[in-house]
């Protein structure tokens, strides 16, 4: 039954009066217009007093002010159409390949929301392991010095204008030359062919660091024009004569990993490395036997080795120490036979031919040194380049296209090149930034960054590696290959990608873009394989080398000899504008932001120069003369530098004429401005030493046999992250032994071997149950505890790490990886000099000292003087590289002292830092025995002093910051978090899959970057995990175990393959 009840609001409604009806109709009164409202005369009678007015004004003003006081709002704009593969907050990885003329490797590029932010090894399908340079190269994508589009005469221009000008130039008479570094890309070579065919262009290639003698020697000795392929994993004895194969020599990114495979004492054998070198290189610091030789003597060493192996002896003028070392090396080589390898770094034909003869005599061609699978690296033709420079100066070159090289900076005859360039009618560069060469060319047609472009690379005859873009081109740039096609009028409307595809599939059309399964797989993996390659072992056809031997043995040097070298961090200078690489300390000297003269302590003392470089102890300046050229540089006293020699790093002094190659390449002042010299020019970081490379017309040798060094009396501050070079005999920090001692006790239980004894303390109870309480009653330090035991074993996860000091080479890849992954601030030279580097991961480099307390006791020196002498490293010391980061102590001394509990322990064994809670008392840093805590002394992302190099202060370079990691503000402490963001996301993935976290599914940035797998990360509570088993190894120990902080990081005793010392 329907409800018929009626409710009314009043009697008016009930009776439906007229008045009610009117009101109901006009329920909402019609609004008055403003005019009407204001013209209402009744308003005039109302009254707003002065006081009320002021009140309203005051209120409104305050309200408006308060409303304006909000923190700036940064809007994030959602996708209108979300790309299928992009999920905000989830990283994508793409396989690609890095090649810059020196370094080549397969990489995986991590992108977040379309931005590439991290480059790592493509460990699953690729070859090579990332080094510091490749790892940090992602920064260059966001360099604000990159050109926004083509330029002509320094002014912005259009592609049409550039193309017309270049084509006009190419249609003229005279030599038309394309100058590049070694081109590995088949597609690019195809496009160059069109330039050759259609425009009569000649192609000249040269390399910033020339390896021509290696190829020439291979041609003469084996009939193959190839760079040797060194198989370090096959070698039992390696002798290197000045080749820094762990740092910068050749395609070094392949070497470290393979060499490290032979350096695991658990295998029951270890390879042995003999190094004969001038500068203390990364390789020399990792060698078992190291001998200091001058550059002019390196050839003699090779000759003497050849003589020794073939059973001859000849007088060679080398010192007895060197000859003894050669005899020992020769004995080891002969013992290893085909599994021995000799390599030399000098780009010097006689030396390389002798080395080939040694390897051939040993029978190692085809096992450790291979020429079968032709290496395409380093095809530079120095003679052609020099002829080009001559022709340019003679005005015979009408058009010059420069691509992927920078001869105005890195050619030995750069001045002649620059002079010649002014006589070239049409010059164009494809550089991304207006570098030394490009800024002098008439036009710049900027290429894409490698992270923006498609490409292919052929490093060996049987494989093609692919470059795929991970971001759309940010600027108005064009692939160099596309430019070549356009200029040769042969693009036929094809874009570069189509052209690239058609290299591999002649009938490719856009229809097949996504349907070619083989191609898709190749892009996914980053490479494709072309057959099995050639497996023939070439015959040695070297013949008589007596002329070469004579030439080598006849070399002499002056009072000082100079060896030019590349720093592991800076390479040939292509990364000069990369602030992270500039701030990464050199693995040997630990100096950042500079190059310098490395000199032996004995020479430093003899010349009366500063032997100790510290915050307020600047380096002495010297003037180095080569012929009639000179350069003023600071001197860094370097242990292991051969007396009578100096070393200078290449790759510095970029932008010496103020070329805009990137802000970090120049020296900045205190107030954030750039430092300038007296004429107002910018001052580059370091000085350029390429001019002192010595060319004989066909090959460039990076040494000078007679230089003069004069003290100027001036000083220059150097920024060094480690000023104490020895570990002062503190054997609980660094444990090391020799292989023989290791081998004899290899099966002992952890803690019992003589080289890794558990540290114990005497107790007043009968531990050994012999009925008496005496000195034999000891307990390990782990048994002593102030705290209530908090179960950590077998409860949930317990993240831990193991670091093998035997295989750590100190390459610093982990340092840069950590730097980028964790948004670690770049603080610049002045702050590093003030001992305020911010690295979460650092590598402590300890040189051995000749002295010890024991020796002091024997010699009656007294303990004070003994300690003082222990501070000085030996002249040719053994070296330890020890990666050091937060040890995530289970009994962390930092945690107890924080007044606000900003640093606490997680129930997964992490020592975690809560930036928001930190008030910055720095007590934790003082109380940290490992000194790994880093304080934000300034507002690095905002303070003016850091404006020129801190990535967070550059609106473009800020894009490289990892969105998963907070950028810290000033006044808070920070330190290694064990990449907690990776741990969290790894756990989340496992949770989504409904499985336990798999060992290896979570990797920290440092462990991932380590080329030798010295660093392992995992769950110590996972019985099957890699770290768990390594941590139980008898080489595993805790640094500073006796102070009882119980770290979660284990170090593995360093084992050197040397003869046991008489203890």
């Amino acid at each position, binding site marked *: 039954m329907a409800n018929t009840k009626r409710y009314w609001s009043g009697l008016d409604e009930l009776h439906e009066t007229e008045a009610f009806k009117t009101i109901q109709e006009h329920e909402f009164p019609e609004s008055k217009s403003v005019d009407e409202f204001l013209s209402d005369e009744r308003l005039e009678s109302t009254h707003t007093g002065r006081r009320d007015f002021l009140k309203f004004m005051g209120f409104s003003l305050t309200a408006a002010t308060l409303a304006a006081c909000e923190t700036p709002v940064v809007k994030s704009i959602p996708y209108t159409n979300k790309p299928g593969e992009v999920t905000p907050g989830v990283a994508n990885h793409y396989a690609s390949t890095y090649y810059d003329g020196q370094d080549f490797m397969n990489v995986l590029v991590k992108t977040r929301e379309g931005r590439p932010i991290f480059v790592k090894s493509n460990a699953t399908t690729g070859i090579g392991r990332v080094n510091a340079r490749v790892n940090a190269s992602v920064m260059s994508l966001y360099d604000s010095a990159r050109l926004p589009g083509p330029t002509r005469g320094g002014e912005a221009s259009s592609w049409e204008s550039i193309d017309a000008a270049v084509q006009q130039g190419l249609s003229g008479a005279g030599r038309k030359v394309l100058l590049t570094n070694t081109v590995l890309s088949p597609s690019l070579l195809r496009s160059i062919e069109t330039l050759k065919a259609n425009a009569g262009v000649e192609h000249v290639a040269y390399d910033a660091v020339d390896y021509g003698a290696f190829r020439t020697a291979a041609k003469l000795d084996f009939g193959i024009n190839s760079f040797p392929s060194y198989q370090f994993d096959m070698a039992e004895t390696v002798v290197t004569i000045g080749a820094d194969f762990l740092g910068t020599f050749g395609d070094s990114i392949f070497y470290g990993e393979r060499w490290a495979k032979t350096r695991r004492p658990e295998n029951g054998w270890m390879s042995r490395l003999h190094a004969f070198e001038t500068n203390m290189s990364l390789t020399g610091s990792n060698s078992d036997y190291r001998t200091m030789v001058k550059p002019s003597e390196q050839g003699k060493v090779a000759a003497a080795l050849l003589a020794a192996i073939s059973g001859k002896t000849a007088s060679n003028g080398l010192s007895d120490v060197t000859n003894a070392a050669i005899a020992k090396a020769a004995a080891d080589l002969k013992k290893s036979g085909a599994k021995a390898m000799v390599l030399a770094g000098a780009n010097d034909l006689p030396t390389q031919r002798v080395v080939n003869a040694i390897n051939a005599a040993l029978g190692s061609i085809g096992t450790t040194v291979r020429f079968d699978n032709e290496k395409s690296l380093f095809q530079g033709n120095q003679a052609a380049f020099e002829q080009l420079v001559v022709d340019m100066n003679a005005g015979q070159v009408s058009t010059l296209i420069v691509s992927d090289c920078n001869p105005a900076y890195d050619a030995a005859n750069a001045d002649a090149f620059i002079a010649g360039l002014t006589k070239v009618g049409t010059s164009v560069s494809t550089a991304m930034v207006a570098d030394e060469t490009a800024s002098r060319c008439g036009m710049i047609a900027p290429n894409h960054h490698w992270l923006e472009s498609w490409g292919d690379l052929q490093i060996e005859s049987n494989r093609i590696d692919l470059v795929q873009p991970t971001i759309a081109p940010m600027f108005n740039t064009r692939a160099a290959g596309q430019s070549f096609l356009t200029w040769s009028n042969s693009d036929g409307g094809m874009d570069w990608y189509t052209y690239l595809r058609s290299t591999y599939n002649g009938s490719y059309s856009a229809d097949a873009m996504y349907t070619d399964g083989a191609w898709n797989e190749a892009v996914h993996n980053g490479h494709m394989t072309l057959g099995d390659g050639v497996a023939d072992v070439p015959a040695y056809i070297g013949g008589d080398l007596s002329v070469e031997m004579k030439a080598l043995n006849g070399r002499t040097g002056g009072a000082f000899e100079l060896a030019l070298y590349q720093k592991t961090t800076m390479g040939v200078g292509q990364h000069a504008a990369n602030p992270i690489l500039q701030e990464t300390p050199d693995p040997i000297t630990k100096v950042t932001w500079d190059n310098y003269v490395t000199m032996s302590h004995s020479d430093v003392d003899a010349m009366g120069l500063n032997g100790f470089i510290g915050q307020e102890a600047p380096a002495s300046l010297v003037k180095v003369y080569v012929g009639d050229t000179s350069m003023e540089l600071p001197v860094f006293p370097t242990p292991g530098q051969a007396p009578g020699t100096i070393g200078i790093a290449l790759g510095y002094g970029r932008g010496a004429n103020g070329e805009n190659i990137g802000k970090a390449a120049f020296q900045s002042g205190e107030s954030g401005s750039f430092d300038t010299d007296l004429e107002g020019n910018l001052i580059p970081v370091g000085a350029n030493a390429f001019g002192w490379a010595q060319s004989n017309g066909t090959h460039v040798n990076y040494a000078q046999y007679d230089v003069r060094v004069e003290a100027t009396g001036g000083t220059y501050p150097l920024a060094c992250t480690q000023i*104490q070079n020895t570990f002062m005999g503190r054997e609980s*920090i660094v444990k090391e032994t020799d292989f023989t001692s290791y081998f004899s006790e290899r099966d002992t239980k952890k803690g019992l071997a003589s080289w890794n004894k558990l540290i114990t303390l005497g107790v007043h109870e009968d531990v050994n149950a012999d009925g008496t309480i005496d000195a034999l009653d000891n307990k390990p330090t782990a048994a002593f505890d102030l705290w209530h035991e908090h179960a950590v074993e077998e409860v949930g996860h317990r993240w831990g790490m193991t670091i093998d000091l035997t295989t750590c080479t100190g390459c610093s890849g982990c340092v840069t990886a950590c730097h980028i992954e964790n948004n670690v601030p770049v603080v610049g030279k002045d702050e590093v000099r003030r001992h*305020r580097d911010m690295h979460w991961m650092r590598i402590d480099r300890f040189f051995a000292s000749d002295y010890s307390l024991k020796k002091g006791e024997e010699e009656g020196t007294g303990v004070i003087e003994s300690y003082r002498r222990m501070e000085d490293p030996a002249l040719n010391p053994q070296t330890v590289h020890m990666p050091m980061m937060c040890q995530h102590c289970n009994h962390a001394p930092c945690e107890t*002292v924080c*007044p606000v509990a900003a640093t606490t322990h997680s129930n997964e064994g992490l020592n975690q830092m809560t930036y928001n*809670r930190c*008030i910055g008392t720095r*007590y934790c840093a003082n109380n940290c*025995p490992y000194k790994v805590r880093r304080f934000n002394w300034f507002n690095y992302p905002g303070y003016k002093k850091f404006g020129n190099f801190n990535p967070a202060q550059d609106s473009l370079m800020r894009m490289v910051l990892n969105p998963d990691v907070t950028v810290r503000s000033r006044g808070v402490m920070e330190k290694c978090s064990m990449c907690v963001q990776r741990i969290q996301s790894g756990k989340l993935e496992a949770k989504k899959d409904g499985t336990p976290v798999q060992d290896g599914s979570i990797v920290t940035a440092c462990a991932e970057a380590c080329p030798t797998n010295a660093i392992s990360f995992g769950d110590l509570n996972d019985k099957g995990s890699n770290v768990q088993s390594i941590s139980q190894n008898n080489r595993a120990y805790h640094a500073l175990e006796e*102070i009882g902080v119980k770290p979660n990081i284990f170090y593995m005793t360093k084992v050197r393959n040397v003869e046991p010392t008489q203890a």
Partner: protein
Amino acid sequence: MQREAAIREPLILGNKSYKDITDDVVGPIQGPAPIGWKIMITISSIIAVYGVGCILYLIGTGIGVWGLNKTVGWAWDITNFVWWVGIGHAGTLISAVLLLFRQKWRMAINRSAEAMTIFAVIMAAIFPGIHMGRIWVSYWVLPLPNQFGSLWVNFNSPLLWDVFAISTYFSVSLVFWYIGLIPDFATIRDRMTKPFAKKVYGLLSFGWSGRAKHWTRFEEVSLVLAGIATPLVFSVHSIVSMDFATSIVPGWHTTIFPPYFVSGAVFSGFAMVQTLLLVLRKGMKLESYIHVKHVEYMNIVIIVTGSIVGVAYLTELFISWYSGVEYESYAFINRFSGPYSWAYWIMMTCNVISPQLFWFKKIRRSLTATFALSIVVNIGMWFERYVIIVTSIHRDYDPSSWGEFYPTSIDIGVFVGTLGIFLTLFLGFARFFPVLALNELKTILKSSGENYKKIQDKH
């Protein structure tokens, strides 16, 4: 009335009456400011303003304007903090401990010593504040209920103990000092003719009327406060020393620190009292009240505490060797032979050798020598803290991080600035406050006044 042996030296010289005492102390407050005072306060205020400027620059820019680094996280900041806290100790010792021990000679010096304590503790309190990276959240060290979740302070941290120790010490000292001032303020009030000054001193004296009941309560409160303050003399610096002693840094982790720090504090405090009073008695013509005997008494305290400190230094050295701990022994070898050995030997000379000169009565009773040595001790005690803090952490466990500390102009500016602020406050005190405890001095006039003693002798 108490009687005192005639053989004791009088504590108040000359022929003083009660009125003379009042005149001598209140007179300068009533009269115009002397020119010397004006010059001194101008200089000290300029230094103070410069110091405040340095502090503001520090807070505005970051701790990086100091010379600290990744290895040396504390240097001048905590050195200054401990130095100033230590100086404060003399005041409390004089007014509380000596009160309990009924040492009448303290009456001439306790007021200004206490003022020095208050000002020194204020200076000390500046440093833990400004040494923080984020001073604007410094209130997080207080256990305040909050809405941040379950955030609470860490009671394990000695820095937190410091917060409690210093704040307790400051409040008790302030109350104790002020209670003593009340009757004297009333005296000033009664003598003031200008209405404004009369009003101000009236307010400050809390309506004191000098009734017997007031005096009884005054005495009771003083005794109670002395009882409370006495343990504080020992607790504060013990706790400050635990900032170091509970750490694991070799050279800091030392169990003798609490007594060693307390005696060091008294040692430096008395030196500072000497420095200030020797100027004050001259400037304000108080030679009759603070005279050679007082100085001698204080010098005796300096010998005793200085010797305790010396023994502590040697004990540390011995234990570092005896312990057989590599790091510990190196820390001390480095102290006296390393890059900072100059600081160590300054410390040893100033703190161990120089006070021993006071064994000679001539030196002990010489005002000039006392003044010079008091400055030497102040310098020495600053270096003691510098040596403990910087030489311990600049080379601790991991040699790869060894480094050195170099002060910047801001380090120096802040420290000198606190000296300026301190002197400004003290000069203000000397101008507007009764620098001697009037009411207490009057209680000993008849027993220890020179002329009364003479009268006694005659009878």
